[in-house]
């Protein structure tokens, strides 16, 4: 295996091409911009198309069009740009068009945005949050697979570290199961046959092939996300089995927390890490198991507390939960601030870990 020194954005681009992504459209916005640049550099050579769209709304709809035509397609942005795309993401969910969205976020304040969305309707977006570039390469390929498998929009929750850092990485095609042919895709060949196709959120279909209609379609979509939820939840536990103090973190923050947990373990502290890999579906059942015997659950995320809602919903005992993260952004507003630093995380974990555990009344 040969490692190649690649910027994260280039590695993700190569992974997307390895997954047969052949259309990309986006609008420059830091720190998503390097991904758009890499896509525009590499897509043409791979026989694909990359468009520097005039807005996030246009970029997302171009990608939706290319997907509706049966091709693996993607778009991306961060924060405010993803907000503009939410109308399209909801549309893709409800009319069942696969769409891969790269959120190269500025920090972790897009958690609600990715997991709750801002569009309308009973939909969810499968969201993978890689901890590093190597994992992002895998997640990118997996996301194209999941988008097609479920005919749904999916999100890679990256950040400025994933976008801009250079690492030695090997982009190997993942071995994923075959998927059924896209017999729903629009290619014009059914036009004039009496069996022409229609892609539409209201799904009323054609006269000769009536669809389920809005009520049937939206119930079907909701049922699909209910099916996805228990099946696609992914997580990782590090020293989580015998931890007294369990840190919960995702994405790049989890990578830093993992380093600190290993360091503290080496010093004899019973500290562990629980890392949701999918932010939706949230690995709730696994978190409930992992928190059964711990004395405290420390949530480290770089926002004012968003994932902590899901932790509160699933932790074995809500009273053991402490928030040790916070909003932390650099002076330009584009990248992580001083909280994403191993000594800072170590100090925050130890401050709680050293405290005698508060055992709530009624719990032995």
């Amino acid at each position, binding site marked *: 295996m040969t490692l190649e020194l690649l910027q994260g954005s280039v590695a993700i681009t190569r992974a997307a091409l390895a997954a047969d992504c052949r259309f990309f459209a986006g609008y420059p916005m830091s720190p998503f911009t390097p991904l758009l640049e890499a896509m525009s550099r590499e897509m043409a050579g791979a026989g694909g198309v990359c468009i520097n769209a005039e807005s996030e709304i246009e970029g997302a709809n171009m990608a*939706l069009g290319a997907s509706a035509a049966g091709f693996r397609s993607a778009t991306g942005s961060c924060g405010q740009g993803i907000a503009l795309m939410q109308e399209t993401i909801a549309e893709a969910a409800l009319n069942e068009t696969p769409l891969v969205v790269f959120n190269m976020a500025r920090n972790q304040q897009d958690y609600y945005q990715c997991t709750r969305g801002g569009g309308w309707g009973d939909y969810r977006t499968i969201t993978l949050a890689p901890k590093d570039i190597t994992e992002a390469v895998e997640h990118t390929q997996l996301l194209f697979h999941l988008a097609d498998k479920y005919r749904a929009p999916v999100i890679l929750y990256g950040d400025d570290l994933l976008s801009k850092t250079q690492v030695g990485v090997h982009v190997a095609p993942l071995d994923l199961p075959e998927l059924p042919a896209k017999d729903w895709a629009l290619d014009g060949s059914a*036009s*004039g046959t009496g069996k022409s196709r*229609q892609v539409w959120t209201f799904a009323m279909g054609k006269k000769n092939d009536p669809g389920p209609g809005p009520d049937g379609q939206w119930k079907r979509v909701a049922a699909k996300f209910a099916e996805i939820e228990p099946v696609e939840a992914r997580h990782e536990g590090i020293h989580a089995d015998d931890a007294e103090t369990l840190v919960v973190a995702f994405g790049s923050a989890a990578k830093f927390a993992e380093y600190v947990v290993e360091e503290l373990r080496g010093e004899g502290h019973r500290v562990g890490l629980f890392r949701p890999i999918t932010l939706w579906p949230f690995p709730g059942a696994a978190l409930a198991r992992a928190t059964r015997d711990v004395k405290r659950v420390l949530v480290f995320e770089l926002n004012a507390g968003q994932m902590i809602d899901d932790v509160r919903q699933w932790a074995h005992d809500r009273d053991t939960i402490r928030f040790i993260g916070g909003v932390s952004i650099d002076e330009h507003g584009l990248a992580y601030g001083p909280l994403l630093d191993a000594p800072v995380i170590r100090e925050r974990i130890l401050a709680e870990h050293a405290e005698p555990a508060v055992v709530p009344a009624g719990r032995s």
Partner: protein
Amino acid sequence: MATTDITIDTRTAPPPPSTKAASAAPSLILGEHQLCPGCGEPVALRLLLETLQDLGVVDRSIGVVGHGCYGSFVRIMDIDVLQCLHGRAPSCATGIKRMRPESVVFTLQGDGDMVNEGLQEILHSAARGENITCILLNNGVFGDTGGQQTATTVLGQRTKTSLEGRNPEQHGYPIPIADLVASLQGSGYVARGAVSTPGAVAKTKRMIKRAVQSQLDGHGLSLVEILTMCPTGWFVPAAEGADYQGASMEPVYPIGELKSQENERA
């Protein structure tokens, strides 16, 4: 004095009448539409479908349809269709056409769809020279939501949101979108037709044909703006729609070709 040698044979039946009559339903329409009496859109849609048949491109035609009354027509339109978000049809069509350049990709949009919500999409797609054909059904109101003012409502027009008539002080001026698109380098063919008279219908069909041909020839974005009647949204009797359109819209939006390759060469 010349004499005529015409004789009338009264012993045999006369030949059957011409079957060229417009009553024959086009095969791409699978049933009856549900649009209001006096609406101009069914005529315009029929012209588009007949043109695709005339050009022999039906089996590679893909439509992208926005939001508006004509959306209900899609259920009986035997063409592969993506029904997309309000205003976004040119962007969706861009994605389709770029990946399937051999296809004939068209958008169907109303004036609220294209000129209000989707102004950015149509202008940028034209500027990029996307090789698609955009059909604008312009009746000057939001028909689907019951007759509110759009960006193309002419001055003086009464709508549910300009009850005393559109006036520039309060509502601004209408946008002549075809003129804007024609001014951009990436557009190949731009025309404005109507469906209010038989002559206008025939002329508009020629425009649609040239627009699709322009796409087949790879000349960039082609646009046909078709003035259509909306008696319901205009609060006029159905039978008066055509005259009302001629009197109110056509002076503001003159019928004719605004841009074509022939014009460029001339």
